């Protein structure tokens, strides 16, 4: 830090303000959903909003500490921090199970979840590792180390078990992709053994991660929609099988791309890009129909297993119950919502939507504020994510950029999966909605993550590299 600068001199205000706005809206939602007439005071510690307020205070305090420390410490100490979070992940396995998982460290209601903090540890170490690697000379060892950094905490988390956080850790793969750490060396080593073949790189290996994710997401969405039938109020008697809507959406997206290309791409590249889009669309539609008809062709017990896994099966007390009720709550919000503290399906008191103050907090928000609210929320998240990527790309230091990307991707994962399970687009995986869900660990870990990013960014000019 240069002398004379205030603490917040080079802070990125748009991101910080977005963060604060989310905290306030999140706090208001927790207050609404957990509202108890007997203790209407928001500072009432016996109620969830009182506790959440304390966590919020602690989070902001931690943020202040982060800002007081020189940002270089995170790069320097990334290994011990990572090791410490791993240590916590091991210890937590020996605690008694709460709700079927050994995920909590601490006493009573003031427990914390080490898995939340493991994200920060892993993010820092991955950033540190990638910043030390020359991507152009990456080899099998580089790929393996990068993967190991992610895999070790993943395995420990799966042992708890905590499927949600486990899935979130795959967000690091996107960061590796951005940085060019691909699976090419592994693939080349296998392929180049074949006599006569001598590749320098493969397209599949290079883009392995996004392709894999497109395939997985498309398959899951297709499966979830394959049993659904869409009806439109303004088109009576028209019933659209869910699968067609997936293909139609893909088509619309492809069309948007083509229009987009006309304005953006250079003329000489346009032909190739158009071809890529059309090819991509055909392959995606083909995959989707394969999944759909493959699924329809399965025997009932096989179908059951998949449906059960994805939480589609009619199981009054199972995952489908939660999702169904969550969707009813979201869908009943209408355009302008039922009004603040008027959620009837998803209030904690009615208990129709389980976990409506934690993992399903999007429900009461959507029910109370309607489409206006949910649109604003999605827009806020979009703005935050894009802003973080803009910040990432302006960093001089690779460490900073990689770290910023991890923050973006972790937040994106939480956003996509959490809201996805509220609208029937994702299986029910218990992960919190950042800055909204009730709970100290996620509040603290996301805040610390955010403040580290803001700190790194505010000092980006100091770094000589």
């Amino acid at each position, binding site marked *: 830090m240069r002398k004379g600068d205030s603490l917040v001199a080079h802070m990125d205000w748009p991101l910080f303000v977005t963060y604060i706005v989310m905290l306030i809206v999140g706090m208001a939602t927790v207050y609404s959903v957990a509202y108890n007439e007997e203790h209407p005071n928001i500072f009432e510690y016996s109620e969830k909003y009182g506790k959440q307020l304390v966590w919020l205070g602690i989070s902001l305090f931690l943020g202040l500490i982060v800002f007081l420390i020189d940002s270089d410490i995170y790069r320097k100490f990334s290994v011990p921090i990572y090791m410490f979070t791993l240590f916590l992940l091991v210890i937590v396995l020996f605690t008694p199970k709460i709700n079927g998982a050994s995920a909590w460290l601490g006493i009573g209601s003031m427990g914390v979840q080490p898995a939340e903090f493991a994200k920060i540890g892993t993010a820092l170490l991955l950033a540190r590792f990638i910043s030390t690697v020359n991507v152009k000379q990456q080899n099998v060892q580089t790929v393996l180390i990068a993967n190991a950094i992610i895999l070790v905490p993943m395995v420990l988390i799966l042992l708890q078990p905590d499927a949600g956080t486990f899935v979130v850790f795959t967000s690091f793969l996107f960061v590796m992709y951005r940085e060019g750490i691909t699976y090419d060396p592994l693939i080349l080593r296998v392929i180049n053994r074949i006599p006569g073949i001598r590749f320098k790189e493969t397209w599949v290996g290079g883009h392995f991660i996004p392709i894999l994710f497109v395939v997985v997401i498309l398959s899951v969405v297709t499966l979830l929609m394959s049993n659904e039938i869409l*009806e439109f109020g303004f088109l009576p008697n028209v019933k659209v099988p869910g699968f067609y809507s997936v293909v139609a959406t893909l088509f619309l997206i492809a069309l948007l791309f083509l229009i987009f290309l006309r304005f953006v791409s250079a003329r000489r590249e346009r032909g190739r890009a158009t071809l890529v889009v059309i090819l991509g669309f055909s392959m995606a539609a083909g995959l989707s129909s394969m999944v759909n008809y493959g699924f329809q062709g399965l025997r009932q017990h096989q179908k059951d297993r998949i449906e059960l896994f994805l939480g589609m099966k009619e199981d009054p007390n199972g995952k489908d119950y939660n999702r169904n009720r969550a969707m*009813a709550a979201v869908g009943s919000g209408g355009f302008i919502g039922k009004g603040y503290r008027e959620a*009837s*399906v998803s209030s904690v008191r*009615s208990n129709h939507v389980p976990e409506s103050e934690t993992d399903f907090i999007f429900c009461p928000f959507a*029910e109370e504020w309607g489409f206006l609210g949910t649109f604003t929320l999605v827009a806020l998240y979009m703005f935050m994510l894009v802003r973080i990527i803009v910040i990432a790309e302006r960093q001089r230091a690779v460490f900073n950029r990689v770290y910023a990307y991890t923050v*973006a991707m972790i937040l994106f994962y939480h956003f996509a999966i959490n809201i996805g399970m509220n609208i029937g687009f994702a299986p029910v995986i218990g992960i919190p909605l950042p800055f909204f869900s009730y709970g100290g660990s996620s509040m603290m870990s996301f805040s610390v993550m955010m403040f580290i990013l803001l700190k790194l960014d505010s000092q980006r000019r100091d770094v000589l590299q």
Partner: protein
Amino acid sequence: MNLDARRYVILTFILLVGIIYTSRLFYMQVVDDQWVLRAQEIAEKRWEITPPRGVLFDRTGKKIVSNRTYYNLMMVEAEIHDLDTAKFAKLIGWTRDEVRERFKEIVRGEGTYYNKNTGKRTPNYQKIRAYPFMKELTLEEVARIAPHLDNFPGFYEEVTSMRSYPYANGANIVGYLSEVSQEEIDEDRFYKPGDNIGKAGLERFYEKELRGRKGIRYIVTSAMNNAIESYADGKYDTSALQGPPLKLGVDIQLQAYGEKLLKGKRGCIVAIEPSTGEILALVSSPSYDPNLMIGKRNISMYYPKLLLDPNTPLLPRPLASEYPPGSTFKLLNSLIALQEGVISPEFGAPCNKSVVGCHNHASAGNLADAIKHSCNPYYYAVMRRIVQQNRKKGVFADAEVGLNRWVDYMKSFGLGRTLETDITGLRPGRIPDVAFYDKWYGHHRWAFSTIRSISIGQGEVTITPLQMANVAAIIANKGWYYTPHFVKSIGSKGPLPEYRKKHYSKIDRKHYDVVIEGMRRVVYEPGGTGRRALLKDIVICGKTGTVQNPHGEDHSTFIAFAPMDNPKIAIAVFIENAKGGGGLWAAPTSSLMIEKYLNRKVTEKEREKTIIDAVFSYMR
């Protein structure tokens, strides 16, 4: 490899998800309304409040059907813990086994739900819901149990309303309530299992009026089915509305008196106010105390007994028993013959006992005397003139024409068809027509001589006592009637529109006078068959009937109206298997009813005692 371009791949990814989610949210929240409905199903519950049923008053304003508060002992299994079955059984006066059996019975009673998708059956019973453990406790019973219920969490008492009958009379008029059947629930969504519905009588006929309007409260409920708050501050709630009171034309004291008279006998009395068609009394004997048919416990105890009683107390005889009318029918045949012009009032015929049996009397030289003596051969002669009018060649074809005309007149008296009276259980009776006899004997195989017993109200003719009383009313009115009905007014509205429409018989008004004169002679002249109906200060016009019965003693019947000049009451009495003719039992019974109604007191104490004290052998 251009790594910097990869930021666009990631940005595209993020923005795509944002766009897709926004459109999905738009679809779910704005376009598709299935979620709103589902949310209502989940979180909004209707609470129905059943109002007490409408109350029934008699014509003098006495409450004859009212409501009484009862209590149900409710239980919620989820809230029951550490139940001491022995103590609990002792408290409610059951055995432990009965208590355990009752729990099982409640679960069974709720039935099961069959899920078509999974092929599984799940019981409808829910531990968190309240079910009545004991129903219909009286205040005394609940006062004994309630103070101790604190020791038995999960049990509580709930107020409910049931019928009560201050007068133990008119059971066959008012009917009774019982739990709805599944078919009734399927037919009308007003009802839920456990609701009561009118099963007979006025309770059934006026069910839609009496049940009132259920109050509906929309409430937001939790997953545990507990009410949290009113939905939308009660904006859509409706309050329960009790059904309107029904005012009956029935005079409950006359009804009670009639039931007293017929004690120990099978029979009926129907009394109608001729000027309005209002039914004053409708006695069916034997009957039962309507208070026996209140609530599930009582009904399951008494209903089988009543059903199996050989004297059929549940049968509303005045409506449903189709008797041959006997000699009372002669009045109608007289009127038809006069209208057809086949006789004049001065028509005379010898009492020729070789044609048909008759009692000893002088031959009737005119119609009025024929009625007075109830001369059988005379009416054979009359009927022959009606049926065989020589309008067509051949005796069979001619009989067809004659009978057709006769049937036409009979129908205009409300016979041979079900009257549109406001009660259930009505029967049409039978006026045999051409088609009937063609089926019975064959086409052109019958003529007057074949069917002649209808001339004296025997044979194939049957009519119900209600129809008989209506005939008396038509004669009293000299040719018209309002359909007999019970309800004078529904709330502030008058009777149903069909009871404000006059029906006319096809007999001219002038022909009634001679018949009425004959009916006066029945009671007031020596040799009249109904002398025992004589009252000193009221002029009664009547006609006796002695119905031959192949299965036992003759039935005794009498129809009458009074007073002669300004008829206030028309009556039909029918007493089954009475030893002695219409003059002996039915006529004095009618006179007592008439005196009771018109004078509000009975002077003929001797006559009254004879009737009341008579107990026929089949009733012992």
